[in-house]
């Protein structure tokens, strides 16, 4: 990218929210950016990495979110503005350090961007990170569109320096992954004289009066912030002088509310207080606006965060009679993302006006058509995905072993192995690296007559992120399991960011790679390396290891992601179905290749009732040739 790059100040660009956040950091003169990839936050650092060399920034894909935040803090202590960006689940990883650095403070501006994922469009939960701002007393900003995301990020560095603390910018998928017009500003100047003053008091709470003293100082900082927030340009009121209802909204809720009020023709009676600064509460501003009304509707994603906090504020104001509507009143669901329709419905209900999005019979017809003719499109492994071959081998090996073996795992493309695309092999799937931790527990149950084999799956990027401590734990505790490292040469799920095992860094420069097999052997572990495209070989190797040892062992399934292969253009094999060999529905296989193996490169042709290769999708891995029980699929090495 590019659009946020070094274009002329004053020009208008159609930027993604995450690109706009990155541009804000560039305009603020941030010198260091560090993060672990995770959707919907990834493009912030992707963008900065693409301009790092031109701007003389230091940008890294860190091993995990905690290290990324620590890298950013290091830069801040030496006077260099820094930024880190993570998804909501990544924030949990960084929380331990964050819950210290909030107290000890920072020097140069440090901005932590967290991108929440309402409706969990690319996540395993939809937690609302604003609660962390409140729990840790961090100033919180919520942009409502890409332009504001840029301005807020830039300003967050100034606020961070003014109070000497971390600032949290909370985006959501519909801001991070939406595009809007952004007017570019001047690029900021990076401090190129980094210096950590050895004479400064230490950044810790254990000297200088202890944590409670730092805690109080943090509360004093928040009082300063609240006063600044009262007159912030990121908050405004729009609507009649004397509204009958006040909407208080933040982030993505602003434009949904604005449109809903217009759709229902309520501009004469409903006003909107749009907040960009949501913790600490801009108390004076809120009281001034709530004084206009008896009814307040709060519109926000995901938790009733503002709603609860506003009620707390109202409790301190007993002479004022206020009725609150929102998620706690049941007018808006406290889960899932919101949109204009949801806000319209809530608003119509409270104001007693009619809201019909579409005529009832059209809606019914549409629902019926979806049900009958629009089959759902579940996620699946891509054509030629190495994970398909591996989980096929795992399925076969565990069946042949016969002791009811199970696979624990975690998030990553391979998480889909909990579903039909991975033959439902994955039985636990939670946070990064959690499969190995869970396997540590299962692997110590021999005294309770537990005899089932345990396999723990993790990706190569996850191995570095969170698997190593659990693996070391297993060595010391002699936990019985096989660690399967699904090494596809990059952080595939988020767009192939490098990790410590790859030969390049975030900016594409050569970097030393940590070899997973050598690292495991260095820990004294037996290591096998298999090719998941070789189903037979992988199954046999798995079976032999399953037969075996006490304590953890490692098997590395090594094959680069099929998307890298497909983009490289060269297919290993030309794959075809020999029409005479494929006996179609009269074969006893019951459509084995498409129904059971499920590679999207294979289709069952409706008319001929035989298998075919979809040449627009097949990447030529040739694995299906080994799966067809009738040997009807042919692979020939491509020239």
């Amino acid at each position, binding site marked *: 990218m590019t659009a946020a790059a070094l274009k002329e100040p004053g020009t208008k660009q*159609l930027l*993604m929210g995450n690109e706009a956040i990155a541009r804000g950091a560039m305009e603020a003169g941030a010198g260091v950016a560090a993060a672990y990839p995770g*959707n*919907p936050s990834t493009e912030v650092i992707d963008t900065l990495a693409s301009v790092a060399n031109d701007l003389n920034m230091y940008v890294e894909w860190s091993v995990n979110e905690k290290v990324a935040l620590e890298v950013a803090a290091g830069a801040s202590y030496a006077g260099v503005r820094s930024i880190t960006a993570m998804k909501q689940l990544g924030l949990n990883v960084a929380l331990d350090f964050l819950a210290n650095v909030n107290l000890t403070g920072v020097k140069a501006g440090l901005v932590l961007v967290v991108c929440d*994922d309402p409706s969990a*469009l*690319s996540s395993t939960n939809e937690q609302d990170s604003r609660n962390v701002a409140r729990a840790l007393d961090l100033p919180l900003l919520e942009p409502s*569109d890409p332009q504001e995301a840029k301005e807020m990020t830039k300003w967050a560095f100034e606020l961070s320096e003014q109070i000497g603390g971390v600032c949290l910018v909370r985006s959501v*998928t*519909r801001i991070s*992954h*939406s*595009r*809007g*017009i952004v007017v570019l500003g001047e690029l900021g100047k990076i401090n190129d004289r980094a210096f950590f003053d050895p004479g400064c008091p230490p950044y810790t709470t254990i000297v200088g009066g202890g944590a409670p003293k730092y805690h109080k100082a943090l509360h004093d900082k928040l009082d300063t912030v609240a006063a600044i927030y009262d007159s912030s340009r990121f908050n405004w009121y729009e609507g009649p002088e004397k509204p009958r209802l006040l909407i208080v909204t933040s982030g*993505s809720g602003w*434009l*949904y509310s*604005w*449109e809903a009020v217009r*759709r229902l023709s309520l501009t004469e009676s409903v006003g909107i207080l749009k907040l960009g600064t949501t913790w600490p509460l801009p108390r004076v501003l809120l009281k001034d606006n709530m004084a206009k009304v008896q009814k307040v509707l709060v519109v926000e994603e995901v938790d009733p965060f503002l709603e609860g906090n506003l009620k707390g504020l109202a409790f301190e104001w007993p002479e004022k009679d206020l009725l609150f509507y929102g998620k706690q009143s049941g007018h808006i669901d406290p889960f899932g993302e919101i*949109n*204009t*329709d949801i806000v*319209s419905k809530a608003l119509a209900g409270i104001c007693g006006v009619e809201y019909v*999005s*579409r005529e009832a019979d*059209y809606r019914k*017809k*549409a*629902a019926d*058509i*979806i049900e*009958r*003719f*629009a*089959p*759902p*499109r*579940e*996620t*699946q*492994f*891509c054509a030629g995905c190495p994970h398909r071959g591996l989980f096929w081998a795992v399925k076969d090996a565990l069946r042949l072993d016969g002791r009811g073996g199970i696979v624990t795992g975690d998030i990553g*493309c391979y998480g*889909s192995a909990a579903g*039909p695309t991975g033959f439902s092999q994955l039985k636990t799937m939670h946070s990064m690296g959690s499969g190995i931790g869970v396997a540590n527990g299962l692997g110590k149950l021999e005294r309770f007559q537990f005899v089932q084999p345990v396999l723990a799956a993790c990706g190569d990027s996850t191995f570095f992120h969170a698997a190593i401590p659990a693996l070391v734990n297993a060595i010391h505790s002699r936990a019985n399991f096989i660690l399967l490292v699904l090494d596809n040469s990059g952080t*595939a799920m988020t767009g192939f960011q490098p990790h410590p095992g790859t030969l390049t860094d975030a900016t594409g420069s050569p970097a030393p790679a940590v070899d997973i097999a050598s690292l495991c052997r260095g820990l004294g572990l037996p290591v096998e390396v298999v090719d998941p495209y070789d189903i037979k070989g992988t199954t046999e190797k798995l079976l032999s290891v399953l037969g075996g040892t006490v304590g953890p062992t490692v098997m590395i399934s090594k094959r680069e992601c099929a*998307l890298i292969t497909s983009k490289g253009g060269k297919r290993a094999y030309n794959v075809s179905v020999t029409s005479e060999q494929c006996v179609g529905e009269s074969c006893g296989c019951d459509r084995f290749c*498409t*129904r*059971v193996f*499920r590679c*999207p490169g*294979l*289709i*069952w042709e*409706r008319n001929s009732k035989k298998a075919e290769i979809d040449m*627009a*999708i097949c990447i030529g891995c040739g694995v299906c040739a080994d799966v067809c029980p009738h040997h009807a699929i042919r692979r020939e090495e491509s020239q």
Partner: protein
Amino acid sequence: MSLRGKDPLNLIIAGVGGQGNVLISRLIGQAMVSEGYEATIGETFGASQRGGSVTSHLRVSRDHKYGPLIPEGNADIILGLEPVEALRQLALCGSPATCVVTNTRPIHPMCVAIGQAEYPEPETIKESIGRLSGKAWYVNASQIALDLGAALLTNIVMVGVLAGLGLTDLRPDMFEQQLETMFQNEKLALNMRAFRAGLTYDFGKPEK
């Protein structure tokens, strides 16, 4: 039928991961921005790399900034890169006035491959789209793209088809300018050919 002057203009691009949905949402959006419009694009691509649906909501206005999701019933145009995805988005966001322009080549979801569901017949899809929309156009854009040398060009062919229909204020030259900023050399020539093949597509001729 014309949507010229419609404000906001709400366009949905419906497709499957890997079809270049996000690229053409940017292409159309940037073309409108260069003419002085406000534009917001909401992109849903969380599952794009693993065969999931990918949807872009494009909202264009002369005066106002709109949120990234088109409300139910407010889609003016559905540009389909895959026919069932076009039907799905029409049913979710369309109205009896919605225009549909879609590629006809199916990409089977996994539930069809494994025999849990049937992919509807082309005639069933057309009939269903007909029941829910104001007007619809069908093009085998994948075939046109394959004839030009790459299935990947399907998205640009469809943008050409949209421009050729003259439904909106978007002029062909606006797209061509954007293509020139997005691509260089051979890639530009190839994308330009794809765009023009769509632009000059003759709906009078029987489909291949």
